[in-house]
């Protein structure tokens, strides 16, 4: 894929990315350049490496090869321009914090070390809570929220990051219909402000209507482009169908060899 001759660098550019988990390759040779202001859905079967791709982009996993550039620079330099919504199960919801505390965490990256959140940060956090309809719950302990409410809190925290590029890992998983439409409204608003969003999604029917662009992923990029062009029976068959079982078998063999199994 060629990068268009744009003066401002692409929000996300991935070159020849390979990531392994326990020595077994999960992503192979991923090349990708995401243009600005797009709402991108990442779809693919279970184990296709959707979350791995996001985590690798965020620098949460070691890369075997390749590189990731965010706004033309290594992620470390531009961490404050990147927002993140992890999977809901990734944290302990019994943790002794309330909703406001969690949303304020979205400001920490910007604040840097040693500085405390100011009144302005609190006001910003409140505005974000308002946007996802969770302001009335600001002082509630996070264990006492429904799954959909917890997801909204995570979204509010990402909003508080005021980032230009967002990675979201299954924000629609296990939420009620009202939350789902609230979330998609917020995502569209972010997109219309010129921000770029990459969203892992596992429901094909809604993927078609939600996203501007789709990334069909199954260990490598099957297709990436505007939803209308990519959402075709042939490409979906390629993503979810049998062709790639060969790939995963080879990956397993490589993993076994690396681990030194007989």
């Amino acid at each position: 894929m060629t990068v268009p001759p744009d003066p401002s660098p692409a929000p996300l550019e991935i070159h020849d990315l390979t990531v392994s988990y326990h020595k077994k390759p999960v992503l192979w040779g991923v090349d990708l350049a995401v243009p600005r202001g797009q709402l991108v859905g990442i779809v693919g079967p279970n184990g296709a490496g959707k979350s791995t791709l996001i985590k690798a982009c965020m620098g949460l996993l070691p890369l075997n090869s390749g590189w990731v550039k965010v706004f033309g620079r290594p992620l470390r330099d531009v961490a404050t321009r990147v927002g993140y919504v992890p999977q809901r199960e990734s944290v302990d919801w019994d943790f002794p914090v309330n909703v406001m505390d969690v949303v304020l965490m979205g400001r920490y990256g910007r604040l840097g070390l040693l500085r405390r959140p100011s009144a302005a940060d609190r006001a910003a956090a409140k505005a974000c809570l308002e946007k996802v309809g969770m302001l009335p719950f600001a002082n509630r302990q996070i264990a006492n929220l429904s799954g959909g409410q917890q997801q909204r809190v995570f979204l509010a925290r990402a909003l508080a990051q005021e980032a230009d590029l967002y990675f979201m890992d299954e924000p629609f998983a296990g939420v009620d219909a009202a939350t789902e439409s609230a979330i998609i409204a917020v995502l569209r608003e972010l997109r219309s402000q010129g921000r770029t969003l990459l969203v892992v999604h596992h429901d094909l029917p809604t993927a078609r209507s939600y996203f501007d662009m789709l990334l069909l992923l199954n260990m490598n990029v099957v297709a990436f482009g505007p939803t209308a062009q990519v959402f075709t029976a042939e490409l979906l068959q390629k993503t979810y169908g049998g062709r790639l079982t060969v790939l995963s078998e080879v990956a397993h063999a490589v993993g076994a060899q690396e681990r030194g199994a007989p």
Partner: protein
Amino acid sequence: METLVPAFDFHRIFVAPWTTEFPTFGWIVLMGFLVGAACGLVGNYLLLRRLALMGDAVSHSVLPGLVVAFLLSNSRGTGAMFLGALAAGVLATLIIEVIHTKTRVKQDAAIGIAFSSLFAVGVLLTALYTSQVDLDAECVLYGEISFVPLEPMVEVAGLTLGPASLVRMALVLLGVVALVVMFYKELLVSAFDAGLARSLGVNPTAMHFGLMAVLSIVVVSAFEAVGAILVIAMLILPGATASLLTKKLPWVHAGAVVHAALSAVLGLHLGVWLECSLAPAMVVAGAGVFALAWVFGPEEGLIARWRRQRGGGPEPVRAP
């Protein structure tokens, strides 16, 4: 004037224990081996089930059971001690279960709270009744394996079998081996996949409690020799070492028994050389064997890994 590290006298360290001093050290090294082997076999299943720290909890909580049983029955009868220790073990599991199901405190903290409380009670009772209870603070921690030869010998039909606690430990080891052989498949399946086990007609809950009961019995029998803390090493080290070298469970069992023998013999020499307590010396020797396997293991050792990495290993296959 004695020094910290005594001179290295080959005869004293390596010859005497097997010749002139053999009547004493023979029993000690045999006891070390029996404890290591029995603990190692049981410990393999703890490792498989990721319950290694359950051994920690049970071994600590056994103490108040022993002390209370002793104070109540006023004897060192094996039956009372076993009962007391078993009761304490069950109590510990119960407390852990109650804390982590009824509150949001997680299991790790629940284990920590349960065993430290019970152990504290045990130590306190020991300190209060030191003159009555035949235990002391250090014995509680690392045992008195050098007392084994001083115990009254058990004689059956005129045949001298050995010191009482050693005979008991030998019987426990035989029992453990018998159980492992008899329930080999069931133990393996229930450790590997509780759902599959259930569908095959194995009750995983019964297996779990059976394992815990055997664990308590092994820990109690080993308690006098190696105390509450070293027994954790005895449970984990043999299996951990063996599993660095092989993946097949029968070989892991065999490796655990070999590890037990190695650590008993090497520990004896180490302890004789340094003139320190023998049980901790055996554990240190066992840890040394583990470290060797970790570094030099032919497949997964640190050196083998480093070589593979430096050699580049097989290139990741390009996606088609």
